[in-house]
């Protein structure tokens, strides 16, 4: 077999022939599919629906917070809303989003494989997700939960009158969805790379998914057992976490955060992977410091497990362990910073195409940096005592999760939209939406840093009158942000029927996924590619194309 170069990989037949969407019709062909691309689409629909649900709770809270009095929602209802906003957004949107949609779709393509290692388990992941989502929906309709997404004991085990058992069971199930996805990705990356695709030729998105999958695999089971103990305690009051019977509420917090801190790296690592891909594609350069970016993903995955009790500085842990955790928390910022430096170095003196994905990623780099640095403030125990449980924390994590992860998800969705659907989205509307999201986001959350510093506590439906101006600004920003999110819903749907048809590589990017047709055929590639080129080998590609690219 002769070795093929990038431009030898045979593409599918010209458009009009069968791809993974047109290959088979009927609801069952989608609901019982084993094709990773179809499963990715199933996830896309599910998480979009749940994002809207989570957004609804946010909108209600922001409207309530227009006035200092708790006049729109009772405090009990407000408690339920911030709880459900957190549970839905974290467990049902952020954690699956990039891995389950983009990871599922792209990983086999980027590896030159026909599918993931365990296609049936992939489908099972989606069904576990849906079962948990339906359970969650039922619980929301029948009264919801008011414990906060953190389920702290003993309130959750003894005093809350809401569906704690049901929601923790749903979280338990969706956790297994996450575990199985991570397991699938790890085995696929290890055992199903195309011939010639060595580790250092992998796209950085794959490195990011690899690191994410390690975290999913090792952290989520601890959440699972913690929730089992919580459910047991809720049903049979024995005192696992009840001080009156000898239990320790902090034990719950230790075990909960052992998962939930690494969980935030599950949310951000894939986003960083998307950032690397988009920066490379729209500068047509190899990412500066490729090896450093690759290893920093692994470093974040590992270090992320060592810092969890920085969520517990004021809970009652010993001062000595607090100092240890604070010290370790500073380390985890280093690999993240390395990535930001490398992306910036790649952008330096590059010819940057300001297409929509790039706009989102430029926003991502800036907003993630702000979010990350404010995380360092929180890692300082002295400072944390002042701002913990205030809006400072709320602003911090929204900067990294929304300004970071969600914007990267939007970037990835737009970047790979032509590959997934065979259509281009409308560029000007998309750019408008990106700008609205950026502006709306900052207007929503920047005031919250100030509010937190001034002392406004989180999870309260009423506040002192002097905080009103900043709260009104925040709600105004939220309206702009909402408009920014609604736009893509409309134009992306529109593009499915009316968008310009996309060829195999509309961006002129380097990567195996761009070497097959858009949308790809069922089996991804008609023959197994043999990889002889480096990651992001733009010089070679551009030479081969004679540098006559028009996108």
């Amino acid at each position: 077999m002769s070795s093929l170069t990038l431009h030898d990989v045979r593409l599918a037949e010209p458009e009009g022939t069968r791809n993974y969407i047109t290959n088979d019709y009927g609801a069952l062909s989608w609901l019982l599919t084993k094709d990773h691309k179809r499963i990715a689409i199933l996830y896309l629909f599910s998480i979009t629906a749940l994002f809207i649900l989570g957004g609804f709770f946010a909108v209600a809270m922001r409207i309530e917070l227009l006035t200092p009095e708790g006049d729109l929602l009772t405090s009990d209802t407000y408690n339920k809303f911030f709880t459900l906003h957190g549970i839905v957004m974290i467990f049902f949107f952020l954690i699956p989003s990039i891995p389950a949609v983009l990871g599922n779709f792209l990983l086999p393509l980027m590896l030159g494989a026909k599918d993931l290692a365990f296609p049936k388990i992939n489908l099972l992941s989606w069904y576990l997700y849906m079962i948990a989502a339906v359970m969650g929906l039922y619980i929301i309709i029948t009264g919801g939960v008011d414990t906060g997404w953190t389920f702290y004991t003993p309130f959750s085990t003894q005093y809350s009158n809401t569906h704690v058992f049901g929601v923790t069971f749903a979280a338990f199930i969706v956790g297994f969805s996450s575990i199985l996805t991570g397991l699938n990705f790890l085995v696929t990356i290890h055992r199903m790379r195309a011939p010639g695709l060595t580790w250092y030729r992998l796209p950085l998105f794959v490195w990011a998914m690899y690191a994410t999958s390690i975290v999913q695999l090792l952290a989520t089971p601890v959440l699972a057992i913690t929730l089992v103990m919580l459910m047991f305690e809720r049903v049979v009051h024995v005192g696992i976490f009840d001080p009156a019977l000898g239990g320790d509420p902090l034990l719950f917090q230790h075990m909960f955060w052992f998962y939930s801190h690494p969980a935030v790296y599950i949310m951000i690592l894939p986003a960083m992977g998307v950032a690397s891909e988009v920066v490379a594609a729209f500068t047509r350069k190899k990412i500066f410091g490729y090896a450093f970016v690759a290893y920093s993903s692994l470093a974040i995955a590992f270090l992320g497990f060592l810092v969890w009790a920085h969520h517990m500085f004021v809970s009652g842990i010993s001062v000595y362990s607090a100092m240890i955790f604070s010290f370790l928390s500073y380390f985890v910022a280093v690999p993240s910073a390395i990535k930001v430096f490398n992306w910036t170095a790649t952008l330096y003196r590059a010819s940057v195409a300001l297409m929509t994905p790039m706009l989102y990623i430029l926003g991502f780099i800036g907003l993630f940096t702000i979010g990350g640095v404010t995380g360092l403030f929180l890692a300082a125990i002295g400072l944390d005592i002042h701002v913990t449980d205030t809006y400072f924390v709320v602003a911090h994590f929204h900067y990294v999760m929304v300004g970071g992860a969600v914007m990267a998800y939007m970037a990835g969705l737009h970047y790979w939209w032509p590959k997934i659907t065979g259509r281009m989205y409308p560029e000007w509307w998309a750019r408008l939406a990106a700008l609205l999201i950026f502006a709306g986001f900052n207007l929503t959350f920047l005031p919250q840093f100030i509010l937190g510093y001034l002392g406004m506590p989180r999870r309260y439906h009423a506040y002192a009158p002097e905080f009103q101006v900043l709260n009104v600004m925040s709600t105004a920003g939220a309206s702009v942000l909402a408009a920014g999110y609604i736009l893509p819903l409309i134009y992306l749907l529109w593009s499915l029927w009316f968008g310009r048809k996309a060829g195999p590589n509309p961006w002129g990017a380097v990567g195996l996924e761009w070497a097959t047709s858009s949308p790809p055929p069922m089996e991804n590639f008609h023959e197994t590619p043999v990889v002889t080129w480096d990651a992001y080998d733009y010089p070679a590609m551009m030479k081969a194309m004679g540098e006559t690219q028009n996108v």
Partner: protein
Amino acid sequence: MSEITLTGDTPVPHEEHHHPFLQHHFEDLGQQHEASTLGMWMFLSTEILFFGGVLCAYWVYRVLYPEAWAIGAAQQIWWLGAINTIVLIISSLTMALAVRNAQLGRRMGTVYMLIATLFFGSIFLGVKAYEYMKHWQEGLFPGAAFHWNEVPALAPKVQLFMTFYWSMTGLHALHMIIGAGLLLWFIWRAWAGHFGPEYYGPVEVMGLYWHFVDIVWIFLFPFLYLIHGAHHG
């Protein structure tokens, strides 16, 4: 729109003789075997963290309440636990021999060893059921039914120990029941001649799961039955 030029000849894909159990997305049986064993090992790592989580909680309270923990362990029938440990070790041996037979292509040998594994596993579960019944009758199930009160000050903490006993052995037993079900399926598959030297992966993977469940018990036994100070009278 960019175009990628097609040059060169398409290598003719050679059709392998398709083994009936080769899944289409794998290149060959070797890759499938490596993927499935790696997958099972990764699943076992999640189980290590899963059981490890409750073990961590158990140890926190053991360090905090050593007396209550010793009393709790004293309520167990240590020699039943010991017998069960030996029984599980025997079942691990038979499981390993089942894998060996599959590797050597010995159809009935595989079947007999799998049946033996199921047999010893069932003994374990039977003994466990007996122990549970006794504990229930003695009022050692946590919650409303708990009525151990020899040392009232320590009663809540002994109840806490029993919580860990029931949840840890219960989770373990659940894994054994699932394992037993899987063994039944594998006995049928082995009897139907599915396995041989070029396709013994599923038996090996079953073995990995079974051995893991054995290892969990190897730790649970001393933790729950053999805390010193537990044998006064």
